[in-house]
């Protein structure tokens, strides 16, 4: 696409219809020259994409079919699909998948509801709206690792702000170790993650909201539709493309969740927060089983591809074009 657009405009401008046929040759040469120029312009991007995406993916695919027990191993027997079989038959893999699914569903759902509410508020006319809009984006601007460190402090069992707040309000009698129970810890991770990513969702949806023509709301008013009816009959259908887009993005991101787990709980307690990415990391690097780790990463890729394909199909069926 980029090549075509880079080449066509000048050719139109120097189109042969304005000049005699004798001038065709230099035009062709110029076209070639520009094609070459475009190639050089694109080369860095191509090398980068190949270097950081295509090559590692092919290499990982290759490694996933060998038994590689050390990064400096000189002997690595070919084992075919054994690593995939081992992953799919291990309890740890499915438990991690289950936790990841839970994390994905709950965090994406939470972010969607909160994001929609925030977008709805930010779309209303009020004084100082620009300031609030700027403030809302702040959590998203924080690096995940900083966000994780901050929430780890908030949840701290001895001096955490959450304990301070809840005991100050008289809701709890004594300080709680929020991250000490496996399932509770997973839910608290979700809250920390949602706090950071809800602004992104809100902004996507806000962009969608601002593009809904006001006439539609006026028409709804004339038809005596209430606020709720208007929301579900006008806003939601017209916002659907934005919602779908943000769902795809957030689902893929949530399935891949790693850094917040690494920084806050390191998968504990009792593996309660060990998501599939973290499980892969532990398998590949802590246990030095690179073959199995690579196979699991490919299984994650398959899950993400399947989810994306599903979303895109749903979109097409509902006749809403995404691109």
């Amino acid at each position: 696409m980029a090549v075509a657009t880079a080449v066509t405009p000048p050719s139109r401008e120097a189109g042969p219809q304005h000049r005699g046929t004798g001038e065709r040759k230099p035009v062709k040469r110029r076209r070639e020259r520009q094609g070459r120029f475009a190639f050089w312009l694109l080369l860095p991007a191509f090398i980068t994409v190949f270097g950081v995406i295509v090559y590692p993916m092919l290499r990982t695919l290759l490694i996933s079919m060998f038994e590689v027990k050390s990064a400096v191993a000189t002997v690595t027997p070919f084992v075919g699909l054994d690593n995939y079989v081992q992953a799919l038959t291990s309890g740890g893999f499915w438990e991690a998948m289950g936790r990841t699914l839970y994390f994905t569903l709950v965090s994406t759902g939470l972010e969607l509801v909160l994001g929609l509410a925030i977008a709805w508020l930010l779309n209303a006319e009020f004084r100082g709206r620009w300031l609030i809009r700027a403030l809302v984006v702040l959590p998203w601007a924080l690096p995940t690792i900083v966000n994780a460190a901050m929430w780890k402090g908030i949840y701290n069992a001895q001096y955490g702000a959450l304990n301070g707040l809840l005991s100050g309000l008289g809701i709890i009698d004594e300080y709680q170790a929020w991250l000490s129970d496996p399932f509770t810890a997973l839910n608290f991770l979700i809250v920390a993650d949602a706090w950071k990513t809800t602004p992104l969702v809100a902004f996507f949806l806000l962009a969608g909201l601002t593009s809904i023509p006001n006439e539609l709301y006026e028409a709804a008013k004339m038809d005596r539709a209430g606020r709720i009816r208007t929301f579900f009959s006008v806003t939601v259908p017209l916002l659907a493309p934005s919602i779908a887009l943000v769902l795809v993005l957030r689902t893929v991101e949530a399935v891949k969740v790693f850094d917040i787990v690494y920084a806050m709980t390191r998968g504990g307690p009792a593996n309660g927060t060990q998501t599939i990415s973290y499980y892969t990391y532990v398998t590949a690097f802590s246990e030095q089983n690179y073959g199995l780790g690579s196979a699991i990463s490919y299984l994650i890729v398959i899950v993400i591809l399947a989810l994306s394909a599903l979303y895109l199909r749903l979109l097409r069926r509902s006749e809403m074009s995404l691109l």
Partner: protein
Amino acid sequence: MAAIALTGCSVTGVSNAGGGTGDGTGTVNALFMKQAGYTEDDYAEIIAAFEEEHPDIDVEPTFVSYEALHDKIVTSAPSGSYDVFQIDVIWPAEFASKGIVADLTDRFPDSWNDEMLPGVLPTAEYQDKFYGVPNGPATKLFYFNWDMVAQVGATEEDLATWDGVLDVAKRIKDEGLSEYPIAWSWAQAEALICDYAQMLGAFGGEFTNDDGELIINNEQGVAALEWMKATIDDGLTNPASTTFLEDDVSKAMAQGDTAFGLNWDSTLRDLQDPSISSINAGVLPTPAGPSGDRPGVNGAMAYSIGANSTNQDAAWEFISYLTSQGVQDQYVDAGLPNWSSSYSDEALVETNPEIFEVAEAAYDDSILRPAVPNYSSVSQIIQVEVQKALLGDKTPQQALDDAVAAANDIQEG
């Protein structure tokens, strides 16, 4: 087909063990642990002094937390990015069998056999070869808050056994001096294994039998875990312990939230530093259990040279300096020396008498974690199962049965 053609070769891209001796000059990249033992400032001082003595060697230190150290060593191994790295006593088998660390046996002077503490010399030994120079003995000691102990009328003698500790802890809790008098580093991490090791030893157990099979589901292993769980149920152990690393235990003690905690020998320095700690801290060897032993977990570390380092001579030069008696004696408040004669140097012992005294006792009965090549996997399994018992998801017996089954499974596989 292409993949099959590759059978027998390596997909890692490494055809043979790289690395080289170098010419004894140039840059030495060193990877150190961030917490416990020598601080970043200590290393900076030592490196500055070393570079003055060796003007043509330049040492570039990098620091990571203990929890990130293993993975950093492993992932940087193929490129040989680090000439020197600090390894834990539990890794030599893994790193040696996977070709990550260089064999240093030929570089070890014979005189070290006599000069170095016999318990310390084999810190990084695997199959009769040395893969690292020890940086002194290290074990977990028992720290306590003197004021709280005195306020309930207890003495040091009462803290000689775990039964005594629980009794004093109950009194401290009843007096309202501390909500949870004991804190432990029971997060899902190696720290949990270290604490469990000391309890296992106190109950007379061991990790493995003579065949190297895990046996912690026997009577002693289960009794140790049941004891740990009971301290949570009795409200004596801080329930947040299952999220704590050593650093969190140290902080809880320094703030006066808790009376007792196991921690590394270098912790005393922090607990006695008025800018960090508000308490009057005391230290003892780990208390005795039913076995009568007071075994400290062997938590020594060592400095190794990367198998793919291209500057191994200069790296050795630096390690020799770093672990020399002169340097180690200077930093006894951060870590105990390797050298036997340091322990009879009265002037030196005077500088850190409490630690010298208790470390000696703890080392007499020290307990080792299993020296197996896939220790990391075995440790992960035990961490998770022990936590399940501590959180009440499984009985201690069930959890340890499951741990043993899973660990022996991967040992065979």
